[in-house]
């Protein structure tokens, strides 16, 4: 949206956020739940966008951090009844911390590699977390997963879907804000520098490894946060949540929405979840619709859904020139 000023972009995003808050309560209980889920996934997708869009690291293991956050929440709640009251806020912090810690560990292994090797290492590490979830029966319940006793109550009962939606929305908006500030900061600019020309950045004296590592850890922290919210939204954690498909979904969401735009991840998350989870309750051919959207986006909108306004602007600007009554002199 290069044709829009920064101020207008911010205002547009704010307006959309306000519309989401105002409209969601009127969409009925099931759609409210779907929108809440989309917001959680939006946080995960935005965290991945920090890597993919801003640092140029395509990770196929983002579900791992969602997984550790979700399992931490479920294990604390089922074993220690921790996180069912005000302590939920501690779980939020712990979830982000455990996400960051796992990313700090995985980053030591993964950051050395680039391109397709980075992709494969993150894939393998993600599968390790899935393997733990699936096989560590005594802790994770294995294949059966874990059922949470319920959503927390602090002052107001989060068991109410609407209250929970507002809270998740708050976390989403905060994450968007923090990540936005992050990419605007000098640190964020140097990440973009690394994406464009890592060698040049290194020659300029930047410790590119450290920059990438920190970005990786930050993405992990937000992944962990998304995990806590994901487990609490669904009331159930299963190895199925951590499986490779979830990582791929996150990646597709970012690409579909438009990588390197932050908001694009959120839009992609909303599009994919609503298409998949709402359309699949209506028609049996939902998979074709989803596939069609992916293919069309990649063919005609390499910049993702976020590039639509710019394209339209471009198209409209070009219009008079192609008309017969072109008033523009050559």
């Amino acid at each position, binding site marked *: 949206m290069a044709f829009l000023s920064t101020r207008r972009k911010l205002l547009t995003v704010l307006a959309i956020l306000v519309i989401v808050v105002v409209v969601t309560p*009127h969409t*009925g*209980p*099931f759609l409210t*739940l779907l929108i809440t*889920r989309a917001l959680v996934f939006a946080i995960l997708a935005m965290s991945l966008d920090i890597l993919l869009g801003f640092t140029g690291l395509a990770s196929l293991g983002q579900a791992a951090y969602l997984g550790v956050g979700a399992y931490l929440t479920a294990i604390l709640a089922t074993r220690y009844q921790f996180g069912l009251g005000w302590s939920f806020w501690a779980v939020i912090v712990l979830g982000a911390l455990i996400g960051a810690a796992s990313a700090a560990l995985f980053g030591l292994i993964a950051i050395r590699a680039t391109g397709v090797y980075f992709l494969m290492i993150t894939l393998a590490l993600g599968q390790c977390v899935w393997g733990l979830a699936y096989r560590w*029966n005594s802790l994770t319940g*294995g*294949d*059966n*997963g874990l*059922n949470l006793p*319920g959503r927390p109550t602090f002052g107001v009962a989060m068991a109410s879907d609407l209250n929970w939606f507002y809270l998740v929305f708050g976390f989403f908006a905060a994450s968007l804000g923090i990540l936005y500030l992050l990419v605007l900061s000098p640190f964020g600019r140097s990440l973009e520098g690394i994406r464009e020309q890592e060698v040049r950045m290194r020659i300029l004296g930047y410790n590119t490894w450290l920059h990438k590592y920190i970005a990786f850890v930050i993405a992990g922290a937000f992944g962990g946060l998304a995990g806590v919210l994901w487990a609490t939204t*669904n*009331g*159930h954690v*299963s190895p*199925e*949540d951590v499986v490779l498909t979830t990582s791929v979904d996150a990646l597709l969401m970012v690409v579909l929405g438009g990588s390197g735009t932050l908001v694009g991840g959120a839009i992609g998350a909303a599009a994919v979840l609503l298409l998949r*989870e709402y359309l*699949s*309750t209506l028609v*049996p051919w939902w*998979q074709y619709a989803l596939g069609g959207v992916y293919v069309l986006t990649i063919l005609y909108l390499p910049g993702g859904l976020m590039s639509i306004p710019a394209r339209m602007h471009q198209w409209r600007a070009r219009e008079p020139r192609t008309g017969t009554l072109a008033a523009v002199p050559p």
Partner: protein
Amino acid sequence: MKTPVWIGAATAACLVMGLAAAPAAADELRIGFLAPMTGPFAQVGKDMVNGFEMYLDSVKNNFGGATVKFIVEDEQAKPPVSVLKAEKLIRQDQVHMFVGGVLASTGYALAPVSTREKTVYIPSIPAADDLTQRDSGKYPYLIRTGWSSSQPVHPFGQWACEQGYKRIAVIAADYAFGYETVGGFQKSFEGCGGKIIQKIWPPLGTIDFGPFIPTIKQDADAIFTLMVGPMSLQFPKQLAASGNTKPVIGGGTSYDEFSLPFMGDEVIGHVSALQYSAALDTPKNAEFVKAYRAKYGKVPSYFSESNYTTAQLIDEVMKKTGGKWPGPEQFVATMAALKIDAVRGPVSFDEFRNPVQNIYVKKVEKKKMFAYDKDELWNTVIKTYPAVGQFWTYGKDEFLKQPVYSRDFPPCKNCE
């Protein structure tokens, strides 16, 4: 006169909400059905829906005066998806009950949803033991119409002893349902003097058994298998190719009619146990198999029968209430008190809301049955254990004291 916009908007909003919340016709029974419609389990899901719909058609969608609204949702054989779809059925369609799920893990994921939303849940396929054992107190709105994993293998262990088998090697799918089936078999087989000398756990979805088959102990008297889905097709083929001459016995899903038509002659003589066989020689089953074949062009599997019988049980409850929805507590209580003559034989319920039913020991044979002109593989019933409950002969108190069957329980004390 100008009407303020907000009044118009408010009226519209009220109308929309009013429509959404309007109670449906008094005599409508809304049943949500969760079955995989896409993915590797799609064919299983088809069998499930077919079974239920066949009963619905036979009563013209009328359960004791109530018109049935039957809503199928694709649960993709994934627990998180089934939870979401159950929420959709409850919130959007306001169903009175939801039925189905395939995997045991799905059953464990759906049961808390029924408690949370105070909606009846009928696991017609998920066989996870604890749903109606140690955890049954947590799930007051759950009543099972299928079976519990270890229910058929308890008598089957007894049967294995009677065949004179002393030492059995086990090869079973590595997940909860496999553990519960093997555990039940081991408990009763070792209880009557047998020994499980080996347990091999290929991962769920294994297609190449090359690394596993050679490790089967050669001095075993028989091999016990528990396979599911595509595994059940591949394992007997590869076992036969390896030159096996030992008797092969197994859990019901290794040879159920869902996969049997696609198997080769190598499975002839294999013996398994389940609460249903399509080859059950009763007039009721003959009629069922013929009607099912006429309608869907194949032999019904236990997935079909179980859901057909579930529909029948719901119908019986609604007949008792005169077509009025009795509320979830009363519905479960009424169903739990039923004794019906189902396709699979007599079915009643124990105090944990698990069916008490016949268990059939079945041998795969190639023959013609039910007036069909070609030779086919059938699960011929060779022994019937009548009215088997989930605790077999152990007594519920003693049984519930032990932990749920797992990879490590019962411990493999005779393993070599």
